């Protein structure tokens, strides 16, 4: 598959602090690449370097096969960016905001009008066309922010944490819109610290911490990096210490803890664990309210690789 973006050995320093540390990756045509990492891990800095907004110490950035520079207008015309911070004019209504930013890319007024209509439909702002930004809720404002960044139908889209602080309805709407963008042929680079979004959206994931890539691959590939394959949670009013110790000795159990009425068990391998546990709890006459099993998440992978939670 054709490479749309290539980043080679990118280093960006703020004085002595390395914000991006020898980062290299490629993005293929039509894929959604997730850049996953906690706040301050270097995701946005990487994006700003790629977009030639920030100077960097060394490295090479190629987009559509050409070197990216601040005046590379032929490259820029096919790029769409949705920054983490909402970037709209308070004095312009929804339509005018989208028209202004779209007009920086498209001169033809008729075609621009069609693009604006498509963008409004994509993010679901049909009922708010004449609203001003301060009249919109946080979620709707985020949707406008996205519409302003993608109305010109770019081939490569950077979405930098577009769902921060939005309500679930808007989040779902935004995620649906991103899938539609991909379906329409766009290549997407999606940065977030919400692993659920990455799991839903991304074809491939790069996990960044302290400016370095600590893992990359598909969601499943990454989960295999984790030493656990299954997590079981049991809600129990009380649990004898002896029973907990016995559970810890079960086959495949990596760790078992009991805190505040929750028994939490992680398994190294994921076969017949839940049924064995249910049988045992019946045998020792322990009654539980709820019992459920989960696959490990990318958060578990991150925890395993770095020893800290993704949302720290």
């Amino acid at each position, binding site marked *: 598959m054709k490479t749309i973006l290539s980043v080679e050995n990118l280093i960006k320093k*703020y004085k002595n602090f390395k914000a991006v540390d020898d980062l290299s990756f490629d993005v293929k045509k039509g894929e959604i690449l997730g850049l996953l990492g906690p706040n301050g891990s270097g995701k946005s800095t990487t994006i*700003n370097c790629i*977009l*030639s*907004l*920030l*100077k960097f110490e060394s490295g090479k950035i190629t987009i559509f096969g050409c070197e990216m520079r*601040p*005046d590379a*207008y*032929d490259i*820029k*015309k096919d*790029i769409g*960016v949705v*920054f983490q*911070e*909402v*970037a*709209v*004019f308070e*004095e*312009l209504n929804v339509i*005018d905001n989208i028209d*202004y*930013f779209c*007009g*920086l*890319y498209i*001169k033809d007024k008729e075609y621009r009008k069609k693009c604006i209509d498509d963008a409004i439909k994509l993010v679901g702002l049909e009922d708010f066309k004449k609203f001003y930004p301060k009249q919109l809720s946080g979620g709707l404002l985020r949707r406008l922010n996205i519409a*302003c*960044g993608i109305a010109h139908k770019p081939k490569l889209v950077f979405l930098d944490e577009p769902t921060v602080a939005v309500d679930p309805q808007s989040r779902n709407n935004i995620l649906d819109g991103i899938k539609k963008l991909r379906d329409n042929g766009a290549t997407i680079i999606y940065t977030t610290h919400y692993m659920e979004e990455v799991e839903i959206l991304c074809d491939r994931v790069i996990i960044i911490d302290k400016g370095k890539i600590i893992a990359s691959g598909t969601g499943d590939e990454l989960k295999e990096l984790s030493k656990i394959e299954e997590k079981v949670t049991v809600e129990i009013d009380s649990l004898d210490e002896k029973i907990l110790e016995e559970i810890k000795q079960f086959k495949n159990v990596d760790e078992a803890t009991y805190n505040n009425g929750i028994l939490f068990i992680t398994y190294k391998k994921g076969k017949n664990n839940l049924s064995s546990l249910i049988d045992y709890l019946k045998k020792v006459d322990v009654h539980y309210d709820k019992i459920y099993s989960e696959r490990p998440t990318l958060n578990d992978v991150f925890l395993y690789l770095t020893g800290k939670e993704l949302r720290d």
Partner: protein
Amino acid sequence: MFLHNLKYSLKTLFKNKMLIFWTYAFPLILGTFFYLAFSNIENSEKLDIIDIAIVDNEEFNNSIALKESFRNLSGENEQEQLFNIKYVDLAEAKTLLENDEIAGYLLVEDSPKVIVKTSGINETILKYVTEEIIQNEDVLTNIIEEKLNSTVIDGSIEEFIQNVREDAISMLDTSSLQIRDITSKKLSYTMIEFYTLIAMTALYGGIIGMTAINQNLANMSNNGKRIAVSPTNRIKIIFSSLLSSFIVQIIGLFILFMYTVFALKVDYGNNFPMIILLSLTGSLAGLSLGLAVGTIFKINENLKTGIIIAFTMLGSFLSGMMGITMKYIIDTNAPIVNKLNPVNMITDGFYSLYYYTTYNRFYFNIISLLIFSLIMIILSVLALRRQKYDSI
């Protein structure tokens, strides 16, 4: 692209309430305040002729400019009389001042001095008028020296000696020097407030320019980041934003002019092409100040607005917005301050248009404003040359 950005830049500027307040409403409010506060005072004192004394010594009689000018201002034409002058000796002048019979007296020794007891309006006028005459006397002396030099080179010194006195008096009479029309008919010490008001408004245009530029710079605003990643030529975008700022500012100045001329009956003189030239140049200075503040300082927009407002208000104060006395004090004691003060350049430009029959001083102010603008623009261009930033 240029027109697209111009259209939306105008739209955002006109809808920015804070901006419109500072650049449109605030000057109108302040102008109305000046009108209400000062017009009655001036009307009640307008026809007063100021009693002064001049120490009638040899030095005074040798000073052609001082003698002729004060003679004209105490003149036969009653309508234009500004001073009622008593020519006395030093002891009597002191006594008259002590008894409050005069506002002050002029004593010419090594250099001319005005002695006053208090610092009221009449005293300020006497000081200011004397200062004007002294400044022009220097110009006169320079011209005479130049003439002397050229005559010496030509080898005809006797011709110079014969003609110099006649030439000097002729220059005074024909106003080929910048002799101010400081007769009571023209003299209005509240006019300066309105001139500084126009100057302040022109400089407040800097807020408009700064706001527009801020929206275009990636290191200053989120919108700037979005514009920076678009395939647009940055110079085009910045230039069209500056043009929109200039248009908004000129409209604001036009409204203020109309309001002060028709509602507040302010007289700016009759030389409209020069008034327009000064307004445009003043606006350019304001705009370039805003451009410089917008591009050089990496602080938030409110702080930048604060810097421009503070700079403009201080400049207005020093150039006489709160009273002509301050302008006199600065012009006398620290002339460099007002030479560098763009508000004073505009104020003084209006002032010279109104009072002087020649344009030397007016053009000096225009050139000073252009130099100020050029410096600001050069500083801004140096800051704008960065296309990538160390941090944003």
